[in-house]
C-alpha cells in the first residue's frame, strides 16, 4: 500500500483517541446499566457523534478535510458491514454517517475507527466541527496552496479546546486554496480563502457569519488578508467574540451569522481585531517549524512523468460515448500534466445520493491503491474523488468504477443531486428527500440529455435546517409539512461556485411530492428554450429572472 500524503497521527493523537474510546465504553456501560439517565448520557453520546434518529442510532464519523487513505476507507467498509447494515452515507460535510448502529456496539465501532486514526469526536454539539476543504486539495491545477495543512492545524487546535466546548451553537469552518471555491466558504461560520496578495505573499481572506439553515446568510469578509502564521490567533479572537456575545437564549438565533447580522460587520471586525491584538503575539502565533512540520506531511506524492495525450484514451473516446462524456464531466485538471482528478459519482440513476455499500467502498479503495496513490477524497457534493490518476490509466479506472456503479458521467449535472437523509432517517426532518432525488434522477437518467442540459445543481433538504444546501442550489427543493402532507418549495438561482455565492429565490407556493418532477421538467424546458449560447441554467435564470420559469411551472403543476 502506498504511503499517505497527509497528516499521520503521532503518539499524542493516538493516546487521546484510545483514552476517549475507553471513556465512552464506560459511559455506555453505565447508561445500559441504568447508572446514567438519558439526560445525563445524551451530551456524552453526542460529543462522540452518536445521534438517535427515527429508527436507530446514527454514528457520524469525521473525515478530516475529506481526506481518506485506502486503508481508512476499507476500515469504514468493515465497520459498516460488522456493526451496521453494510452501507454508509457520505454527507455534505465530508463525513460518513452509519444509520443503524446499536448503542451496545458503538464503543467497538469507535475503537475500530481509532485503529486507523479516525474518530467521531466533535461531529455533534456546540463545538467546532470537522473543518472541511476543497475536495481537490493537493491535486487541483488552480490551487495556490494545499488548504489541508491549515485544516490540520485547526483540527489540532480545536479538538477538545476547553474554552470552545460550550459555544452558543455549532461552528463550522471551511477552507479553499483555489480561486475557484469548491468548499462553499461563504456559507460557513468561518470561511477561509487562501490567496496571493500583490506583494506575492499568500494569506487568508477571512469570511465570517455565513450559513444556511433557517436564516441563510452569505458570509462577510472581516479581514482581506491575514498572514498565515496569525491564523489561530485570529480564529481564537473570532471564537472568543462569538462565545462572549452569541445568543444562548434562542437556539434559532445562536449561530454567529445572527450575531454578525445584529451587530453589523464593522462592529464585529472591531471586536475581533481588539481581541486579536491581545492574542497575536502569544503562543497562538504559529512558528515556522510547526507550519513546516505539518506541511511536510502533506508533501505531494512523487508522481512520475506520464504522457498527457494517450492514443488508447483518444481511441476509446471515439468508440465509447459514455466514456467520452465521463472524461468531460467526471475528470478535472490536475496540477501535473499527464494526470487527472477523477470523481467517482455516488449518484447512479435512481440511487440514494451519497450512499455506498461496504463492497463499493472496498472497490474504491482498491482503485485508489492501484491508480491514485492510495488516496481518496470525499466531496461536499457527496461523491468520492481519486485525486491522482494518470491519463493513461483512465480507461482502467473508468472500467473499474463502472463495475462498482460509480462511473455515471453526471458530475455537476442534473442528476448529481445533493440530498440530506430527510424524513426516512432524520428525527428533525419534515419531509422525505431521498425518494424525491430518486424520482428526478430516474426521470433525467439519459446521459445525452444531461449533457445537453449542462451544469445544473439540484439540492434537496427535508427541513429548514438545510443539510441538503437547498438555498444554494441552482434549483433548490425544500420539503415542508403542511397539515401532515409533504410539500416541496422550489427556489431558483442559488450558487456557491466560482465566488459567485448567491441564495435562491422561492418561486411560489410549494408543490406536492407527485408534482416535483414535473416542476423540475418545466424549469429545464424553459431553460432549454430560452438559453443563449454557452449559458448554464443559473446564468439564464439570472438573465431572465423568475417570471418565465414560474409561469411554466404553475401552468404545468
Amino acid at each position: 500500500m502506498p504511503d499517505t500524503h497527509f497528516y499521520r497521527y503521532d503518539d499524542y493523537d493516538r493516546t487521546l483517541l484510545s483514552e476517549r474510546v475507553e471513556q465512552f465504553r464506560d459511559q455506555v456501560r453505565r447508561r445500559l446499566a441504568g447508572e446514567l439517565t438519558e439526560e445525563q448520557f445524551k451530551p456524552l453520546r453526542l460529543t462522540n457523534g452518536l445521534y438517535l434518529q427515527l429508527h436507530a442510532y446514527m454514528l457520524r464519523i469525521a473525515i478530516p478535510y475529506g481526506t481518506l487513505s485506502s486503508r481508512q476507507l476499507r476500515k469504514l467498509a468493515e465497520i459498516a458491514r460488522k456493526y451496521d447494515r453494510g452501507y454508509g452515507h457520505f454527507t455534505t460535510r465530508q463525513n460518513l454517517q452509519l444509520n443503524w448502529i446499536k448503542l451496545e456496539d458503538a464503543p467497538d465501532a469507535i475503537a475500530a475507527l481509532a485503529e486507523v486514526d479516525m474518530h467521531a469526536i466533535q461531529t455533534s454539539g456546540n463545538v467546532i466541527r470537522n473543518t472541511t476543504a476543497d475536495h481537490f486539495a493537493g491535486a487541483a491545477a488552480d490551487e495556490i496552496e494545499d488548504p489541508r495543512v491549515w485544516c490540520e492545524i485547526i483540527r489540532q487546535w480545536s479538538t477538545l479546546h476547553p474554552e470552545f466546548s460550550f459555544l452558543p451553537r455549532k461552528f463550522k469552518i471551511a477552507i479553499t486554496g483555489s480561486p475557484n471555491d469548491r468548499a462553499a466558504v461563504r456559507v460557513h461560520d468561518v470561511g477561509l480563502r487562501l490567496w496571493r496578495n500583490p506583494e506575492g505573499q499568500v494569506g487568508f481572506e477571512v469570511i465570517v457569519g455565513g450559513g444556511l439553515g433557517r436564516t441563510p446568510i452569505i458570509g462577510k469578509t472581516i479581514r482581506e488578508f491575514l498572514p498565515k502564521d496569525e491564523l489561530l490567533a485570529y480564529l481564537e479572537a473570532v471564537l472568543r467574540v462569538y462565545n462572549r456575545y452569541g445568543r444562548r437564549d434562542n437556539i434559532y438565533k445562536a449561530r454567529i451569522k445572527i450575531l454578525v447580522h445584529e451587530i453589523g460587520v464593522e462592529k464585529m471586525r472591531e471586536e475581533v481585531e481588539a481581541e486579536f491584538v491581545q492574542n497575536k503575539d502569544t503562543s497562538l502565533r504559529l512558528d515556522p517549524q510547526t507550519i513546516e512540520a505539518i506541511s511536510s506531511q502533506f508533501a505531494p506524492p512523487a508522481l512520475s512523468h506520464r504522457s498527457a495525450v494517450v492514443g488508447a484514451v483518444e481511441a476509446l473516446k471515439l468508440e465509447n460515448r459514455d466514456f467520452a462524456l465521463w472524461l468531460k464531466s467526471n475528470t478535472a485538471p490536475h496540477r501535473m500534466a499527464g494526470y487527472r482528478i477523477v470523481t467517482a459519482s455516488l449518484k447512479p440513476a435512481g440511487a440514494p445520493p451519497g450512499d455506498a455499500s461496504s463492497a463499493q467502498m472496498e472497490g474504491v479503495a482498491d482503485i485508489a491503491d492501484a491508480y491514485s496513490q492510495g488516496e481518496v477524497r470525499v466531496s461536499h457534493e457527496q461523491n468520492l474523488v481519486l485525486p491522482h490518476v494518470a491519463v493513461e490509466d483512465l480507461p482502467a479506472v473508468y472500467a473499474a468504477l463502472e463495475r462498482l456503479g460509480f462511473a455515471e458521467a453526471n458530475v455537476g449535472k442534473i442528476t448529481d443531486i445533493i440530498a440530506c437523509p430527510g424524513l426516512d432517517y432524520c428525527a428533525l426532518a419534515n419531509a422525505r428527500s431521498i425518494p424525491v432525488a430518486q424520482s428526478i434522477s430516474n426521470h433525467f437518467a439519459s446521459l445525452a440529455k444531461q449533457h445537453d442540459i449542462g451544469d445544473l445543481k439540484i439540492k434537496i433538504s427535508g427541513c429548514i435546517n438545510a443539510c441538503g444546501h437547498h438555498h444554494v442550489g441552482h434549483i433548490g427543493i425544500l420539503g415542508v409539512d403542511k397539515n401532515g402532507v409533504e410539500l416541496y418549495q422550489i427556489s431558483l438561482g442559488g450558487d456557491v461556485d466560482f465566488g459567485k455565492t448567491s441564495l435562491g429565490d422561492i418561486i411560489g407556493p410549494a408543490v406536492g411530492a407527485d408534482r416535483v418532477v414535473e416542476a423540475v421538467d418545466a424549469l429545464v424546458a424553459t431553460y432549454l428554450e430560452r438559453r443563449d449560447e454557452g449559458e448554464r441554467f443559473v446564468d439564464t435564470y439570472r438573465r431572465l429572472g423568475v417570471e418565465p420559469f414560474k409561469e411554466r411551472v404553475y401552468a404545468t403543476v
Partner: protein
Amino acid sequence: MAKNLSGDLTVVSANRLSDGVVVFLDDSGHWTRKLELAALARDKRAGEVLLERGKAEAFSVIDPFLVAVSEDDDGTIEPLSLREKIRVAGLTFQVIASEAVRYA
C-alpha cells in the same frame, strides 16, 4: 374506514435504549416492536395516564411519547402522521445491500 382522526386515539412509543429500535407500550407494561400489540388510549386523559405508565417503564427505552393513531373497523391501528408511519414501516426506498455493486 379509519375513525378518530381527531388525534384522540393514541399509543405510547419510544426508541429502545440498546439499539434505538422503535417500540410501543403494550397493555401489560412491556415494550413491543409490534404496533398491533400497543395499548390504545381512547381519549386525552387515558393518553396522559398511558404516557405516565410508559415513563415509569422507561428503564430500557428513551423518551416515551404519545403517537396519534387511527383505528379501522377491523381494529387495525395506523399512525396519523407520515413521520410515525415511517417509524413503524421503515424506509420508503430500497437501500443498497452490503455486498452489492450496482452493475455486477
